[in-house]
């Protein structure tokens, strides 16, 4: 085990923060408090955190429309995110991006993305910057099973392999592209098989196991930093909520979500593992739960009492200079 006690507490805190953020947003959205499109990440926490625990603020990631988890795994400010979801002036994007476009370049977060398959070509650019300037940084494209079918994603994988770019393509397969099951829409048996077509290593990981994700990502990141080129990771994860908030989820089997929450909850699995191994105690983890709970509550209260943008904000930020 190469993770210190501090690392383990941080990993748990980040996963718990994502879960609580998402659960709270689910409630707030249902109450009609939040505008727009919201896509929740709950259930997939071990993937974002397991990968991003191997990255620095200088390593860039690109995300998806389901981006809150990736943002929080990259330590994007919780208050800034919550204010953004509420469309407030002081949101991290000034209320101009919303849930689908949260970015924090200072943390290496190149943006959630409303376009499925938009991220992989962009992240090749971040990797090209790293290679050109010789920084030793790596770049990670998070994509879903739906995005794995996009031509842009195929182009990006070939591009990265040809130019030996330091990229990790992480496909979070949560079983559904919107409402369509991936066992129907992904023609090969597993997304990981596609790595072979691009001449890059591929690894399939059980995404409810933080340690498995962390291990696989550590190896891929090390290869990329050493100039060994891209890696494809397929991470199999559950999706606890619908495609978007308000989705009636009529395409899912009865009891499916309850069973996932009971048997495939990465937070419960993590807690059991570290407590049984004597690495952390229940009390340690309960304390994190309490602190994160307070943090999320405070962020919602702050967001609700924060001002909306005004007419003076409509036309700013279109160009650097026009």
């Amino acid at each position, binding site marked *: 085990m190469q993770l210190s006690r501090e690392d383990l507490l941080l990993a748990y805190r980040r996963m718990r923060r994502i879960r609580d953020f998402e659960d709270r947003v689910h409630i707030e959205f249902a109450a009609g408090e939040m505008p727009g499109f919201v896509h929740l990440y709950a259930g997939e926490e071990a993937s974002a955190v397991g990968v991003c625990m191997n990255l620095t603020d200088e390593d*860039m990631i*690109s995300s998806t429309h389901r981006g809150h988890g990736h943002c929080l795994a990259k330590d994007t400010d919780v208050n800034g995110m919550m204010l953004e979801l509420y469309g407030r002036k002081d*949101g*991290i*994007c*000034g*209320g*101009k*991006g919303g849930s689908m*476009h949260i*970015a*924090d*370049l200072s943390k290496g977060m*190149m*943006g959630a*993305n*409303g*376009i499925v*398959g*938009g991220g*992989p*070509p*962009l*992240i*090749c*650019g*971040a*990797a*090209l*910057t*790293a*290679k*050109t*300037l010789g920084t030793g940084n790596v*770049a990670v494209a998070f994509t879903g099973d739906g995005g794995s079918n996009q*031509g*842009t994603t195929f*182009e*990006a994988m*070939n*591009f990265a392999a*040809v*130019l030996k770019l330091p990229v990790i393509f992480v496909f979070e397969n949560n079983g559904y592209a919107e409402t369509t099951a991936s066992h129907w829409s992904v023609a090969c048996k597993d997304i990981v098989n596609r790595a072979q077509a691009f001449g890059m290593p591929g690894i399939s990981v059980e995404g409810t196991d933080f340690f498995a994700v962390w291990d696989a990502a550590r190896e891929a990141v090390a290869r990329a930093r050493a100039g060994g080129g891209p890696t494809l990771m397929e991470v199999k994860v559950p999706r606890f909520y619908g495609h978007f908030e308000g989705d009636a989820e009529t395409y899912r089997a009865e009891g499916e979500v309850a069973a996932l929450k009971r048997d495939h909850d990465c937070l419960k699995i993590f807690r059991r593992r570290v407590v049984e191994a004597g690495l952390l105690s229940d009390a340690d983890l309960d304390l994190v739960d309490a602190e994160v709970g307070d943090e999320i509550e405070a962020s919602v209260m702050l967001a609700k009492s924060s001002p909306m943008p005004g007419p003076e904000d409509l036309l*700013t*930020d*279109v*160009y*650097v*200079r*026009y």
Partner: protein
Amino acid sequence: MPKKTFKQALNEAHFHEMRRDPRVIVMGEDISGGIGASGEMDAWGGSEGVTKGLYTEFGEARVVDTPLSESAIIGAAVGAATTGLRPVADLMFADFLGVCFDQIFNQAAKFRYMFGGKAVTPVVIRAMIGAGFRTAAQHSQCLYPIFTHIPGLKVVIPSNPYDAKGLLIQAIRDDDPVIFLEHKLLYGVTGEVPDGPYAIPFGEAKVLRDGGDVTIVALALMVQVAMDAAELLSKRGIEATVIDPRTTSPLDLDTIVESVEETGHLVIVDESSPRCNIATDIAAQVADVAFHALKGPIKMVTPPHTPVPFSPALEDLYLPSAEKVAQAVEISLRSRRGAA
């Protein structure tokens, strides 16, 4: 001042800026040319030779030959620009931009706004436009109206070698995403071009000719058509002002309006297809702010609303000509407002 071709002017702009700023890279298919062929790494220099010689001086780290994959090229250029490089991506024919619209429309153009002003995306996308080369419907379009429509993009369309060099240098130095479109019939055109670097600001139209009877606005290859038309008209006793906006986003409307306030007549020559193009845009804006100054109808000279044909016989009919422009001017002058 030495005479150079449009292509040489663009090539010099690349050399100046790559020597000045190590963050400037060029990328695209065939950009050095011939990777893997016979060991010659600087063979082609892009499909038109605009980037020739760069590989020899700057090497493979900054002159990046890519696989043929437009979305990946433009997406990577946009991502590299957002993370600290200043890429110039060559996409060959502007028609091919169709397969990477997402990377341009939804990503590059919107990062700054969506991210609350925190992103800077200094990418330049170069591509060829225009008919007249017998390249038919998928290699001949003038797509600048589509890019002009998108907030967040700047759109540059030079008409001569001097402007080509100065505008490309400005494009590379500019902190916003720039679509830089080169008419393929202009590469061989010569003109006076200084040896040293100089930048031409965006949003400043160039007045190529001064005449009191009519204002003619034209872009790219159509500037020459407009100038030829002005010569024809002059022989018939009509003097035209010819204005090249040079950039359609930002657009120097003031210079156009000032001229129309003097002449009272406006003819716009635009090689892009006639619906929702730059001609309709300028016509609407001038009518909106300077209707009082118009003495006759605004006339627009464009191709018909059809894809670009292949057959030389048809393509020649397709393109606006000096005679068509002259006729449009005469119609506007004949149908003066208030005339009996």
